[in-house]
């Protein structure tokens, strides 16, 4: 990042090659909208470029710092769109399709159910779950991204998993 802060485009491209897919998946799972997720990725990377000199490796890993930027952008979007369309309408848009048609159909049904269930969680519950479970970040990093203590994170995770289990059990 030191090289990036000196305006090295190649170094920045190398950073993005490593982190962009992870950040996009994170935004996709939080927002459940491909277009918005891509916007968040673009914004995150541009902000990382602009603020590269402010990055301090003693305070956070690069991955954590990028997640923190993306998280703040996602929270802003979710706040703005809380009164717009429900998230479940976007379930189909983020499903992968590199399978046989039969498998894809079964997977898509499972995806749709799961996406509906996870979109019913509150934004904070979903964020805690996505960062810990899918982004595979250590609990300390996840707590740092969300600006909470590790105890508070664990409490959020317990409630999120409990709520998700209930929703999945109640769904047909």
């Amino acid at each position: 990042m030191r090289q990036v802060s000196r305006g090295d485009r190649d170094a920045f491209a190398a950073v993005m090659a490593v982190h962009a897919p992870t950040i996009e998946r994170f935004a996709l799972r939080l927002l459940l909208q491909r277009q918005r997720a891509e916007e968040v990725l673009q914004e995150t990377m541009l902000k990382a470029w602009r603020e590269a000199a402010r990055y301090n490796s003693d305070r956070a890993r690069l991955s954590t710092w990028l997640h923190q930027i993306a998280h703040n952008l996602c929270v802003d979007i979710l706040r703005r769109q809380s009164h717009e369309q429900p998230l479940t309408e976007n379930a189909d848009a983020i499903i992968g399709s590199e399978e046989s048609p039969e498998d894809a159909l079964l997977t898509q049904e499972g995806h749709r159910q799961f996406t509906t269930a996870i979109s019913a969680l509150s934004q904070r519950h979903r964020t805690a779950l996505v960062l810990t479970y899918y982004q595979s970040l250590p609990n300390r990093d996840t707590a740092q991204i969300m600006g909470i203590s590790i105890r508070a994170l664990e409490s959020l995770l317990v409630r999120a998993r409990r709520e998700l289990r209930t929703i999945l059990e109640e769904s047909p």
Partner: protein
Amino acid sequence: MKTSDSQSALSLERAIAILDAYGASPARWPKAERDAMQMLLMRSPQLRAHRDAAASLDSSLDLWDVQERAHSFLLPESLPLQRIQEQQWRVSLIDDLLGPLVGWQRLAFAAAPIMIGFFWGLQGTNAIEDWSAAEFYLLNPIPEVTFND
């Protein structure tokens, strides 16, 4: 077998809380408590039952795959100015402006706006007095004098 302090300090309640929060996969458990969890799992059937319940939710979570587009991020042709460059640009602008000045001249240049403000303030005092007079006559109009023939 060697037992560390952290292994012996882990209570069943804490172990259950870890499973409830992080699920059944040891890779997601807090690193410092991982070994103690494994030890406790070997000893406690209750904890193993809890782990199995957590694993069933994990298998649902594992199904949720999303497809990112590898090509979705394209490095723009012209990236915006970096903040550090922006700051350097401001510093160099100030240097360009103050470049020919030396020592006391720079101090005088910096003090000039303060002096201008001070004298402007003094000027303003008179204006306030004038306003006070205007306000006085506005609130106390001169009575109309009429003459009786």
